[in-house]
């Protein structure tokens, strides 16, 4: 029995055990990455269809034909769900977390490799199930990614609310289970498998961010699982957890006495931490890249850790701010509002520290650095509209308008995506052994940054002017029609930005096979993943376990032979 487990760490043979059902966290990380890459293109295609329909409502499109209002609702539901679950949760945590976290703490693999593999394949099944919702009769569901009942709880509520909605909920339930498996694996690995000398306060901030994200996922996804089970019961067993007495098409349905607010409480108890699940890994990557490429220690390491812990903790106490308009005691609204604005404090600490890290640094403007700076920029401009929405009085005007769409796309959508881009450009050399093209990377960055602001900044004005989200068509309404030019501008910007992503894909796949070979430590970084070979061997460190003597951000240390001190350099190198 002992011998069997010892052999589990020797490299597996055969294509299937090596690349498909692999137990190696690096392979699983890449699998997550490519799953998210597929998902992000599906999600982006859906948003493109929505944008085109918005300004040319009558136009017949290839593949989908003319977009009817219910098709539009299906598009936005699937866009939101796929992006939030299968991109923003999957890529930073499942993808880069899986690949990098064990190496950065000096572990040969995750604590539970089998669970890790099951977690990926469960996510994969979830993705297949949600894509299947497009192809069943009635099509994809209409209820948005938040799935508010009664719309989501009644089979007869609309064309997509039959089998399509069942598949949607099933997919999310499967995703919950997969995320739980992943989260407990991440936490256990971080707690139990740190190399000698890698104390908690010597962990890179990326590890901290994945660790805290995993705690959030562990506590949040269980609640969503319960909420989903109750929703499935309402839909298929005729219970009335979420459904009051409803009349559809003049027919009284059998439901009675339930409350849609119950779903909103359960959903947002998950939903708000989910926002931080998406953004926290981005914060970790930004910290890592800013410090490495500004050649300075991160400004306020401990403050960064406590800020992330604070954000995670507060994130569980603010779900009510999504429900100001759903009927809530003004006193609760007041409490939720204050707590929400409290999140501004750790967020401001982080921003201040990022700027402090850059201040007087010897900045190397490689592509990952550009994306990390872009992340900070988006985090600030998307975050500033948060305190507006946190106030119940302002929320009455802004709720469910494009202001909200602009806000959350900037901060949790594109900022998190910028974190993913920074991570991709930063760790690509380690993952594939080759460098990405800098020129293409820069072109990609500047078009994407400008495009992002061109798309989402005007949405704030649309929202303040009273344009509601989720409406498929504004051309027929007189006062809304005046806003159409701005919508047209957004659509054009979206088409350009989406086209620019082709540059990224070309860069990614071209560099994977034809890029210049990468050295073991191309960024001259200090963390453990850069001490091993490129790409790392099966057990990460070729049979040795590294010993750590330094913190993760020892740049510009006086008296050191180089301007950086690797974490595993012997203790004699610096005074730190």
């Amino acid at each position, binding site marked *: 029995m002992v011998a069997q487990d010892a052999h589990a760490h020797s490299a597996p043979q055969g294509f299937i055990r090596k690349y498909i059902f692999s137990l190696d966290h690096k392979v699983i990380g890449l699998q997550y990455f490519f799953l998210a890459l597929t998902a992000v293109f599906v999600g982006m295609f859906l948003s493109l269809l929505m944008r085109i329909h918005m300004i040319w409502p009558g136009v017949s499109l290839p593949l989908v034909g003319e977009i009817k209002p219910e098709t539009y609702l299906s598009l936005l539901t699937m866009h939101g769900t796929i992006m939030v679950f299968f991109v923003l949760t999957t890529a930073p945590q499942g993808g880069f977390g899986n690949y990098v976290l064990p190496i950065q703490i000096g572990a040969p693999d995750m604590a539970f490799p089998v669970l890790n593999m099951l977690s990926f394949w469960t996510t994969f099944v979830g993705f297949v199930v949600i894509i299947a919702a497009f192809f069943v009769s009635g099509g994809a569901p209409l209820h948005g990614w938040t799935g508010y009942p009664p719309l989501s709880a009644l089979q007869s509520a609309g064309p997509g609310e039959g089998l399509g909605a069942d598949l949607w909920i099933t997919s999310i339930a499967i995703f919950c289970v997969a995320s739980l498996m992943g989260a407990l694996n991440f936490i256990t690995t971080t*707690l139990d498998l740190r190399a000698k000398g890698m104390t908690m306060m010597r962990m890179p901030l990326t590890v901290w961010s994945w660790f805290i994200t995993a705690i959030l996922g562990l506590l949040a996804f269980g609640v969503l699982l319960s909420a989903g089970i109750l929703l499935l019961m309402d839909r298929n067993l005729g219970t009335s957890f979420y459904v009051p007495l409803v009349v559809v098409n003049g027919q009284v349905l059998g439901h009675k006495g339930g409350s849609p607010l119950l779903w909103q409480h359960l959903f947002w108890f998950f939903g708000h931490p989910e926002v931080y699940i998406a953004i926290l890994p981005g914060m970790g990557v930004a910290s890592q890249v800013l410090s490495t490429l500004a050649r300075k220690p991160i400004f306020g390491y401990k403050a960064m850790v406590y800020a992330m812990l604070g954000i995670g903790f507060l994130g569980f106490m603010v779900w009510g701010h999504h429900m100001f308009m759903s009927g809530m005691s003004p006193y609760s609204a007041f409490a939720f509002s204050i707590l929400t604005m409290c999140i501004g404090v750790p967020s401001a600490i982080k921003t201040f520290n990022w700027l402090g890290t850059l201040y007087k640094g010897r900045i190397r403007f490689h592509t990952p650095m550009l994306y990390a700076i872009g992340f900070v920029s988006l985090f600030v401009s998307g975050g500033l509209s948060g305190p507006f929405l946190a106030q119940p009085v302002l929320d009455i005007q802004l709720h469910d308008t494009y202001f909200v769409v602009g806000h959350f796309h900037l901060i949790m959508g594109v900022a998190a995506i910028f974190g993913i881009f920074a991570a991709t450009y930063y760790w690509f050399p380690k993952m594939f052994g080759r460098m990405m093209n800098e020129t293409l990377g820069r072109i990609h960055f500047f078009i994407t940054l400008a495009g992002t602001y061109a798309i989402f900044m005007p949405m704030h004005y649309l929202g303040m002017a009273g344009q509601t989200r989720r409406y498929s068509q504004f051309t027929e309404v007189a006062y809304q029609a005046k806003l159409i030019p701005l919508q047209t501008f957004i659509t054009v910007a979206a088409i350009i930005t989406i086209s620019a992503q082709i540059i990224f894909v070309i860069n990614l796949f071209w560099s994977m096979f034809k890029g210049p070979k990468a050295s073991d430590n191309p960024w001259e970084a200090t963390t453990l993943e850069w001490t091993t070979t490129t790409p790392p061997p099966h057990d990460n460190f070729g049979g040795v376990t590294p010993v750590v003597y330094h913190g993760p951000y020892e740049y510009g240390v006086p008296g050191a032979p180089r301007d950086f001190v690797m974490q595993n350099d012997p203790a004699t190198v610096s005074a730190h």
Partner: protein
Amino acid sequence: MADATLQHDTVQHGVPGAYEAPLFGAYSKKVGMWLFLASDSLTFGALLFAFSYNRLYTIPWPTPFHAESIANATIMTACLLSSSLTMVMAVFAAQRGDRAWTRNWLLATMVFGTAFIVLHGMEWSKLIGEGLTIPGFPKPPSAATGELADISKNVPQFPATFFGLTAMHMLHVTIGVIYLGVVAFRKWFLPILGVLWIAGYLLIPADNVFHYGIHALLLGLIVGAVILYLKPKDYDAHDVEVSGLYWHFVDLVWMFIFPLVYLMSTKIQ
């Protein structure tokens, strides 16, 4: 045995002493189980929140349970509490390295767990027969009239929360019994499970909800087979302890459900 298990755990993680001491001094499997339980308590917490939420705004909340139901639920509670005791004995035996008694105590735990499930299933069938039901359940013809049938019609939240909570818990107990069975008997438990599944499916009449519910055993059989295929190993004292953590958690959840769902819905004379 104890030495062997210790060695097993460190070999799994590479060279002994190559790592920082784990937090709380716990081995990975135990940390993993605690984390799962943290997340599962949130899952149950959400269901209990749904129950409390419905109960608070549904006025009046029905309180139909007779002494008979309460007595039955008390026996079920006693079964679970006894099973916790035998589970502790199993963990002790495993730590002593006493394989025979580990197996015996695990078997005793499984028997108590199974008794709980069977009693609970009979209770469910009786209540459904008297009319306490949700629309999606198959129901015998007798379910149409009576006090409980009125409750189901007027306050659908009552049966919905009752069946939702207890079904989730019963599922956890079932998973627990299968889990302990796999730990105690490994692959030899799977055929037993298969026989129980087929027998249950054939013997339980089609108008009973457990005619369909028994398929949980098939699911357990498949998952158990996959896990035994991926980890074809002997289970050691650590595994027994970790399975014990799960079992005690399931008992603990019942200690919330029993007073909330049963005792607080006792018929007031």
